[in-house]
């Protein structure tokens, strides 16, 4: 709805669009709990928001000569029947344009995610700050700066074309995937906002995939996110403790998301482009295909990691690959594979590198060194369930 109103009011008045939606929600919140939900709640909100916007536009002099035209548009939408099929398409299109604007190169990289979450996802400053472990003031400032960039750069909600569209799409996919990873990296048990992030990223990905932009890598990204999100319910036990992939109950994987993932995975096979998203989706698909842990096809997974590493020499990819190396060629080779990563500046203070190393050393019958790794991992920033997991591993190492 913010996206829709922003299109009507103009991107420079994004703030007004946000306040309008806020006000409409507030009215619902004050009324519905007593009087009950009106017959068609969405239509009620939609109409009320447009009426609030009409009042605001009439009061607001900054719109100048455009005022009459904007008011006429708002009036038009305020009276659209709620079951108008065209309206739903229009709203989806408005959201799509909004994400593409939020990922405009004129907007700072770190602000793109926050801005998308705020304007399209309906997240608040506090929630965004919590999700990114940043403080409220920093996020608020980032958003203010982004809105200024929209105004000063005279950004529009027009979809880019041709080469520019391709570039912008990459930025959109990057933002969506970043959002997903932020949600996925820390575990649901600690903070539920994280799962919301994953689901919002998936929703945005699907929105782009359903649009007229036919790019196989969009489907690859959606497939990847759906297949990984399917595992979310199996990742923590009742007490919120982490369960490693190999001990997960595959029965708890979300079958609907797996089906969705495979649907998009198939669609991503069109054409000959192989993006990183493709390879990562293929890895996730291999995991999802296994009926249980022992039947997982590790040699295929390792091959895919080799491919991924060739596309992206990221130390995080190399670390993940090492886990597959351990499964296929044993812990000694895996340990040798992660040795060079110890000095990588990007992985300094990264608990997972130390945890993997500790795990491999334990398998190699070197518990004293493993214990040292888990101890060092506990010094790194990580979530509460991760900390409990590391403490358990430390106990095992000490007892071995």
């Amino acid at each position, binding site marked *: 709805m*913010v996206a829709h109103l922003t299109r009507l009011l103009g991107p420079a008045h994004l703030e007004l669009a946000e306040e309008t*939606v*806020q006000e409409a*929600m*507030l009215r*619902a*919140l*004050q*009324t*519905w*709990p*007593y*009087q*009950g*939900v009106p017959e068609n709640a969405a239509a009620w909100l939609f109409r009320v928001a447009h009426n609030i916007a009409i009042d605001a536009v009439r009061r607001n002099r900054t719109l100048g000569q455009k005022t009459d035209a904007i008011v006429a548009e708002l009036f038009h939408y305020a009276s659209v029947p709620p079951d108008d099929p065209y309206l739903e398409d229009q709203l989806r299109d408005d959201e799509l344009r909004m994400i593409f604007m939020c990922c405009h190169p004129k907007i700072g990289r770190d602000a793109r995610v926050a801005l998308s979450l*705020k304007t399209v*996802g*309906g*997240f*608040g*400053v*506090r*929630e965004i700050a919590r999700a990114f472990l940043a403080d409220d003031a920093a996020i608020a400032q980032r958003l203010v700066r982004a809105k200024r960039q929209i105004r000063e750069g005279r950004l529009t909600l027009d979809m880019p074309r041709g080469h520019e569209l391709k570039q912008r799409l990459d930025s959109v996919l990057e933002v969506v995937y970043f959002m997903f990873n932020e949600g996925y990296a820390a575990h649901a048990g600690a903070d539920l906002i994280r799962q*919301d992030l994953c689901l919002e990223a998936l929703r945005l990905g699907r929105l782009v995939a359903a649009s007229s932009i036919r790019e196989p890598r969009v489907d690859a990204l959606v497939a990847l996110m759906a297949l990984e999100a399917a595992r979310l319910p199996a990742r923590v036990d009742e007490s919120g403790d982490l369960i490693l992939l190999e001990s997960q109950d595959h029965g708890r994987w979300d079958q609907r998301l797996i089906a969705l993932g495979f649907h998009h995975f198939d669609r991503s096979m069109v054409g000959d482009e192989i993006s990183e998203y493709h390879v990562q989706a293929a890895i996730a698909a291999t995991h999802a295909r296994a009926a249980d842990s022992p039947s997982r096809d590790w040699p295929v997974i390792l091959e895919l990691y080799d491919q991924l590493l060739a596309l992206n020499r990221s130390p995080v990819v190399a670390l993940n690959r090492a886990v597959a190396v351990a499964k296929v060629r044993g812990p000694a080779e895996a340990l040798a594979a992660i040795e060079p990563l110890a000095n990588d500046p990007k992985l300094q203070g990264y608990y997972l590198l130390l945890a993997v190393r500790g795990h491999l050393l334990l398998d190699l019958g070197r518990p004293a060194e493993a214990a040292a790794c888990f101890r060092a991992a506990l010094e790194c920033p990580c979530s509460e369930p991760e900390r409990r997991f590391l403490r358990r591993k430390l106990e095992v190492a000490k007892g071995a």
Partner: protein
Amino acid sequence: MAQFMLLLHSEPSGFMQLSPDEMQKALEKFMAWRNKPITRDGHRLTDDPGKVMRSTGGQIRTTDGPYSETKEILGGYYTIEAADYDDAVRLALDHPTLEYGGTIEVRQVWGT
């Protein structure tokens, strides 16, 4: 079953701090509570202090309501069914207004 009135006092501006997403979640909680089978009736009151009328020395005087000095106002009320006060309080324990800084006054309807 006796009937009880739940009088909800809160600051109307309290929700302004929430994001649309949080409002949506709050709304779901409020609606879930309202839809419980114990609820007979509910009404929202307008966001103003209202009026208080009183007769002094044969003269009726009308002043602004009792809430003009505080930010909290009586925002609305529910009628619910409960066995006794303990039961009514227990049923109101999970009313989301408490989570959002509101207070609930519980009163039994006479003769029920």
